[in-house]
């Protein structure tokens, strides 16, 4: 197990380095430069700016400097938000997005898993059909529609919930609902099908033949096997949701990372784009690593690779 974790950590670090390098290279391949604007700056200003951000040095030196800084958690100064360091901007956005996303995922798991199980146990009955209807809805309706509908009902018509910001519990209700909508539906579908598959397995029949009570059969023998697909899905889900949804953050005016990322692209904020890309990739890689380790703990059949 220890060896497995060590190996997994090492490959993750390697992957992160690769991503960082590729991002660095891509930044030079895209046409245009960070200081290009409708009104081109004078040659002298351009030179001064390039010097300030180290862009006058050979590419290889730039690369070396960037990587060395990255190792210390430094991602350079934002080109557009003068005076602020990229890692600080990312961190403050991430704090907001991660809290919101974390709650949303918790909600999605806590609702999706039991609902999926209930659907499986009632296969073919009306309850199953009802759950199927709502989960199909949840998967089919995009986030901006959910957000807008929620807003119209609860803020505009009923005037119950605030429409922007994140300053109280009530502020969280709509964005969390909007964020949790799809994953809840998806998890319940996943859970239903894997639970049905597991319930048909021979070892469940063995558990019954032993005389185990229903709840023990479900919670001990079925759930642990059936939850595996959900765990797999949780990796990318965590990475995407914790880093903030652009749509939800725009609609509810939340100062999260998703918002930050989009404005950095619109503003051609080179250092910010690089920083956020590397940060998102790193998070995704780490989450997948954690999922793999969790998987290994749940299912002993997964071999050390």
């Amino acid at each position, binding site marked *: 197990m220890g060896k497995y974790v060590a190996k997994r950590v090492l490959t993750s670090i390697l992957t992160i380095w690769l991503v960082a390098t590729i991002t660095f290279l891509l930044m030079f391949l895209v046409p245009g430069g960070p200081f290009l604007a409708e009104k081109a700056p004078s040659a002298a200003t351009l030179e001064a700016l390039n010097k300030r951000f180290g862009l006058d040095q050979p590419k290889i030196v730039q690369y070396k400097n960037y990587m060395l800084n990255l190792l210390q958690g430094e991602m350079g100064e934002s080109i557009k938000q003068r005076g602020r360091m990229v890692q600080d901007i990312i961190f403050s956005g991430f704090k907001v997005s991660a809290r919101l996303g974390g709650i949303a995922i918790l909600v999605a798991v806590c609702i999706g898993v039991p609902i999926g199980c209930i659907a499986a146990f009632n296969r073919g009955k009306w309850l199953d059909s009802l759950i199927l209807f709502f989960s199909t809805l949840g998967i089919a309706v995009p986030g901006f529609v959910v957000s807008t509908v929620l807003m119209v009902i609860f803020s505009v018509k009923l005037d119950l919930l605030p429409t922007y910001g994140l300053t109280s519990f009530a502020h969280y209700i709509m964005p969390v609902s909007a964020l949790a909508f799809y994953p809840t539906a998806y998890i319940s579908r996943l859970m239903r099908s894997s639970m049905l598959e597991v319930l048909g397995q021979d070892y469940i*029949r*063995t558990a019954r033949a*032993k005389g185990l009570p229903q709840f023990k059969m479900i919670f*001990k023998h079925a759930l642990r096997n059936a939850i595996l697909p959900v765990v797999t899905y949780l990796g990318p889900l965590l990475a995407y949701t914790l880093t903030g949804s652009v749509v939800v953050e725009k609609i509810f005016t939340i100062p999260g990372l998703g918002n930050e990322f989009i404005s950095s692209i619109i503003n051609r904020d080179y250092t910010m784009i690089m920083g956020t890309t590397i940060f998102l990739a790193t998070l995704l890689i780490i989450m997948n690593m954690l999922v793999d380790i969790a998987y290994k703990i749940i299912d002993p059949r997964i071999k050390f690779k």
Partner: protein
Amino acid sequence: MSELLLNIQNERLSFFTPAGEVKALNDVTIQMKEGDVLGIVGESGSGKSVTAYSIMQLLPHTGRVVGGTIEFNGHKINEMSEKEMQAIRGNEVSIIFQDPMTSLNPVYTIGNQIREVIMLHTKKNRKEANERAIELLTLVGINEPAKRLKQYPHELSGGMRQRVMIAIALACEPKLLIADEPTTALDVTIQAQILELMMELKDKIGMSIIMITHDLGIVANMCQKIAVMYAGKIVEYGTVDDIFYNPQHEYTKGLLRSIPKLNDTEHKKLVPIEGTPVDLLNPPKGCPFAPRCNSCMKICLNKMPEYTEVNEGHISACWLLQKKEFEQGGK
């Protein structure tokens, strides 16, 4: 006849499916005393497993007993609730299944899965259950039992896993062990070992066994009584000698014809008899074997044959047995 361990009287069982009522068991009667070894043979779909599972109420909800009674060890099985059944399953009656590769839960250790049934039905604590588990693994011939307890099913071979299944089944010293084709999924040498083990343990523990199989060689060696099933009905029932040397039902005869040499040491699989099995959704009103029977008579198509006692304890449901009587009394 209260000393009967198992007394199934005229059991009828149907599966209620969207396509209609599948009449899986039609009038099954089985009686077993303590220590008996009964073999149930018959082709695929004849209702062997359904008969066995119904003793433990292990069938899906769609399968319901629609007639007759099942009594086991003093319990009226078909009147018992799920809760009451849980106290019996794995305790007074156990079962081992065909495929040991999939019958154990892959995510728990062998020890966990053996201890579970011990702790469920006895007052033993974890430590005592562990000791009992080691004892059981030794009993079923698994070496290094303490080490095995910590292993997962995928780390064991098929034969070993079936031994573990037997250990689980025997953990509470059941009165009846049901073996549903326990060796079909294993290779030949392992098969022999497992069967030998079962017979050895039967004497040690003093339990009864229901042996479900396709393999006539197995029943000849292991069982005292044989029930031949066809289309959810026991068409012939008797001792090994009755069935092998004095078969009365045309289906039994067909079965026996399909093995080349009876005393062959090699176990031969049944070669299916020509024709297709009956459609249990629309069973015929006469003898279910009639469409495939070479001696089929008019009455066979119209009336279900009644049981006739050939000699003591040997019964068969075939009109040929009563042919003489017809010819005298008929027309």
